[in-house]
């Protein structure tokens, strides 16, 4: 009786392995001779342009708004004038706790953020060629935050803007993030007769605040 059980476990294991085994076997048999991986020479892409103004231009092209700011409190003040009477607000910026009307520590589940109005986060770096900003989970206390909020504000330093995505991934080398997102503009769709609508399932607006260092 004991022997039969062991045999059955063996067969069950083999059955579980078989698709993986079958697929890898087929691929090994059918793949061509190894081709070289190309070397990426980024210099062929470089242009002598002002990357900060390119970044600003691209953020606007993708439907975001760009502002300059001198301090965290200044960001709060500008945000308050953009969105005067919002109920649920949260900012990660140092020294701006007074702005917050929710406490993420008391959050039971991410779903409770469904009515979040205004969210202010810090970006790690920005990419001039496409107006994208990288946010990792290290800055996101709750992953759904930048997507579930109604209005999103991202703060980024001038010196953290890189020209191309290649430099962005250089910065990410060796950084072990559980989750990260390259975020470019407010959510949007053109699925109804190609008419662009800003505000789909994610944030309805994106405001980027550029800070001097």
């Amino acid at each position, binding site marked *: 009786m004991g022997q039969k059980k062991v045999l059955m476990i063996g067969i069950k294991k083999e059955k579980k392995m078989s698709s993986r085994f079958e697929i890898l076997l087929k691929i090994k048999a*059918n793949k061509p001779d190894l081709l070289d991986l190309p070397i990426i020479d980024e210099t062929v*892409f470089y242009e002598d342009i002002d990357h900060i103004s390119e970044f600003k231009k691209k953020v606007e092209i*993708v439907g975001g708004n760009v502002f300059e700011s001198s301090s965290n409190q200044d960001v709060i003040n500008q945000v308050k004038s953009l969105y005067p009477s919002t109920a649920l607000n949260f900012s990660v910026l140092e020294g701006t706790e007074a702005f917050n009307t929710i406490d993420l520590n008391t959050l039971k589940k991410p779903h409770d953020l469904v009515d979040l109005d205004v969210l202010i986060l810090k970006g790690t770096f920005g990419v001039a060629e496409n107006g994208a900003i990288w946010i990792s989970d290290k800055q996101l206390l709750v992953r759904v935050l930048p997507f579930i909020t109604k209005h999103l504000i991202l703060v980024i330093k001038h010196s953290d803007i890189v020209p191309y995505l290649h430099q962005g991934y250089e910065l990410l080398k060796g950084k072990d993030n559980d989750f990260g997102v390259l975020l470019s503009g407010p959510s949007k769709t053109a699925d109804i007769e190609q008419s662009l609508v800003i505000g789909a399932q994610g944030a309805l607006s994106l405001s980027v605040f550029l800070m001097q260092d």
Partner: protein
Amino acid sequence: MSHSKAATLFNENEAKVNWHDKALWFVRHKRDLSAHAVKGWESLRQLGSQIKAHTLSNLDNYLIQFEENALKNGIQVHWAADGDEHNRIVHSILKASNVKKVVKSKSMLTEECHLNPFLEADGIEVIDTDLGEYIVQLAKEPPSHIVLPAIHKTKEEVDELFQKNIGTKPSGGDPQYLTNEARKHLREKFIQADVAITGVNFAVAETGEFVVCTNEGNADMGAHLAPIHIACMGVEKLIPKQEHLSVFLRLLARSATGQPITTYSSHFKRPRKEQKMHIVLVDNGRSVQLGRPDFRASLQCIRCGACMNTCPIYRRSGGHSYNATIPGPIGSILSPGKDLKKHSSLPFASTLCGSCSDVCPVKIDIHKQLYKWRQIITKEVPQPIVKKISMKMMGNTFSKPNHFKKVGKIARWSLRHIPKSIINSKPNIWGKERDLPDGPKESFDDWYKKRKKDEQ
């Protein structure tokens, strides 16, 4: 139904054809503006092509590396030999947690496997949350384009669908209003969902992470709320290193819609605390296509849809006329590999103009593969006897100079003397909407011989 029959039906409404053609050409045009603004664009395409070709030549090892790293990251990895097994795997994950409500972001792979009907047959609710996918889901149609699923639907048609299914007020197809209403409705679905299913744009072997690109944020609204996230991918979506994302993310959105990048490019590496993350690696014929040297490059596809937007035939016949999960030029080289007979008309739904190959961000030689599939189909799929005979006759005529001259003379005489009403009668398909040229008295050959004689 063959492509040509479906296309003929589509062309009965010329106004609709013009509308559909213009809509897609506009997307092609936006792609042009975007690509032409990137210094080194052609180098980028070359890199994309070479990275993908290299990956395919080492695919088994990269899959093993990806699995190892994904498992270390806490992602459960499943392997599905075909579409049915993929569906069973997804279903069993759902069943194990008694799942009733699923939200799904765009995944052509799940379309290919026909996942929705499989789950719905067991009473599981699956909501497609990409607005275009949601529209065709309500219309009970398959998507007609891999990036713009509802491109064939007018705003008035969408308005009616929404009125009927989610109780919107008649708005004459106001995109802003309809999108807002969809947002409200889908937001509730995200909150209630037990499982989020997403596709995968790129999976990175080096790190065991995968990237999902959307403009709407629907993949993230699903994945960051639901306690279970299942990502479904074809095995060819792998890339070797994280740094290669720079190449593909620069190419993808520009080729697809002309945007510099999608709004969200979400990099998933580990599940969030208390969340279960699964990835299902699907073969479903890809390993077989890998073994076809002439057609292997079709597996480089990053599903941007640029070939569809540029194809003059796709624009004038619509995605549904291809009767394949992936339509258009890329679909016409992938589908025959899966079912040669069913899809035998697709490689002929082309003039081999080559535009698709030139917009493809990973330089797949689509038009060359279409030509090659034609040679195979005429040998392996029964062809109309008239076609076979006429080809043999032509081959015969053109290899015998004297015969060619005789046939040419008869053709010219016929065009000169047979009444137009007979020439342009029903059997002459050309003559339905076009005149044939007049038959000249002399061929070039006749003229040349005469000139030579006169000179002597």
